[in-house]
């Protein structure tokens, strides 16, 4: 294999990984905060994807504005869901949370099918994103490069917010030890609502940005559920950089395996996840829980 194709495989995998990161990072933080098993996170990504595609098509919003719109719309909707549906089950059994979020998936899938239709949606990328960029060694799709840059910038921004701001410190404290944080006066419920909105908003952006790579149709939430969960499980609960590296790892691995073992490459991803979780239940990058 020559250097050029190696680089192009790496870049392709990283672009896919960035989408996984943007969608999954919120899930990692919210599950870490409340221990809430949220299987409906992918549905928020799907809603975002639709909001972005439709606002571009019907209102003629430019791509960046549509992304912003998707973020705000889904973050708002998610707060409603969080207050009405999630909040009563904070202390409930895992099983009830699983049930609720599977139900939410079904309902949102059906709602989108009824409202928009079952067919796959495509994103009309603006001209400045759809060409090729000269990297010196090779030409590569501008959009993939933009994804990689955007994902990395987002990771750094989140990391900065997490490590350097008061709210970030509270979130970290609550992820590490919820009870301790509560007894020191941190309102974990409000923190959860906030991170839930932020996480869902990011998932929405990820759904729009990733429609190119992952596609966008009503079956999206179930199709990628296992992937998002694997990224979180490998990256560790509430670990932003962990989720980032896990997403890149899985994105690249999946990209490579799909090229060389098109018939069942994902087998290895599941097997690796299985072995990893058995050896380190807290994830590859997660801290050991108490």
């Amino acid at each position, binding site marked *: 294999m020559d250097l050029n194709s190696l680089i192009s495989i790496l870049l392709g995998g990283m672009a896919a990984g960035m989408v996984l990161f943007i969608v999954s990072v919120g899930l990692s933080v919210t599950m870490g905060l409340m221990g809430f098993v949220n299987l409906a996170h992918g549905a928020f990504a799907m809603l975002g994807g639709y909001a972005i595609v439709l606002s571009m098509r019907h209102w003629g919003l430019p791509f960046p504005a549509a992304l912003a719109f998707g973020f705000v719309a889904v973050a708002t909707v998610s707060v409603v869901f969080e207050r009405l549906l999630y909040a009563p089950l904070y202390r409930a059994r895992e099983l*009830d949370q699983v*049930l609720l979020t599977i139900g939410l998936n079904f309902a949102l899938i059906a709602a989108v099918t009824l409202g928009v239709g079952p067919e796959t949606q495509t994103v009309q990328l603006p001209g400045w994103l759809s060409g090729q960029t000269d990297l010196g060694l090779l030409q590569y799709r501008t959009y993939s490069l933009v994804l990689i840059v955007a994902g990395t910038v987002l990771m750094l921004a989140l990391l900065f917010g997490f490590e350097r701001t008061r709210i970030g410190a509270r979130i970290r404290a609550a992820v590490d030890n919820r009870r301790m944080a509560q007894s020191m006066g941190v309102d974990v419920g409000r923190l959860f609502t906030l991170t839930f909105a932020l996480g869902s908003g990011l998932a929405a952006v990820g759904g729009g940005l990733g429609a190119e790579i992952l596609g966008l149709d009503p079956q999206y939430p179930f199709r990628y559920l296992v992937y998002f969960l694997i990224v979180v*499980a490998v990256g560790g609960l509430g670990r932003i950089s962990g989720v980032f590296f896990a997403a890149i790892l899985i994105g690249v691995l999946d990209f490579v395996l799909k090229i060389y073992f098109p*018939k069942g490459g994902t087998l290895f991803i599941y097997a690796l996840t*299985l072995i990893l979780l*058995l050896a380190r239940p807290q994830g590859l990058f997660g801290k050991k829980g108490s």
Partner: protein
Amino acid sequence: MNAPMELARRHRLQWWEALPWIAALACFFAFPNYLAFGTQVLVTILFALSLDLVLGYAGIVTLGHAAFFGAGAYTVGMMAMHWGWNEPLSGLLAAALVAGAIGLASGLVLLRTQGLALLMLTLCTMALLEQAANMGAEWTGGFDGMPGLSFGKIFGLFGFDVLYYKSQYLYALATLLICFLAVRTLVYSSFGQSLTGIRENLLRMHAVGAPVRARQVIAYTISAALAGVAGALFAQANGYVNLAVLGLERSAGVLIVLILGGYGRLYGAFVGAIAYMLLEHLLAKAYPTAWQLGLGVTLIVVALFARNGVIGMFDALRRRFGGTRT
């Protein structure tokens, strides 16, 4: 009545427990044109019953139970396809052994974890088997599965006919009855009580000196074997196996069936499977999207307000308005 007698009475077979079986037999004569559907219901009841053992009694939340259903289905499928071994009863036994062995092996390692990690691990185990079945096309038929399987006669007398499900229905009913009696015996035994103890209070179970993990692994293995039998029945009755027998959809489906019926109460599997499949049969074909929406909303409502399923709602009502507890 004093408590020990009450306890002994509750564990004894009651007269009304014969009713579902009589009703099932009556359906055989009353609805000869719906026996294919009836057979699917019986298979689903058995599958849900196997899940009840781990979820309802041992309190293990799993999203990967279809792994064992699929293992059973593929076992009889591959035996018939590649070795020409199509005797049905030994097929069920082989399916139970294979699925049970997978349950034992995965249970031994998986059940060391709990919570989210366990949920992920069960999911990954199933996804792994699904991908393996997809990849090993030479053996499993890959994406297309194994259509047109044919199986031998039961006791050399009653043949399967994929157009008329007469034999299949009775065969599935008899298998379900035997498995049900086994599960019933198990959950009312001291072993079953200790599983309930693990579900109700893990900390206390450790403190009374119970070998908690060994009990969970045993329950997981038995449950896997039963799910394997259900999968084998599915393959034999329908004459095909495909990838859908071990997907997330089937795992989630059986979970929903059990939850709607009520878990940890034996008959929840029956109520859930019949109610769910009847509704699905009537609605899903005609109005697939509305069915999905209704299902989603129902699940949300159940999770928020009716956590013990249909039977649980009746129980709660009866407790409120007096009367004894079953």
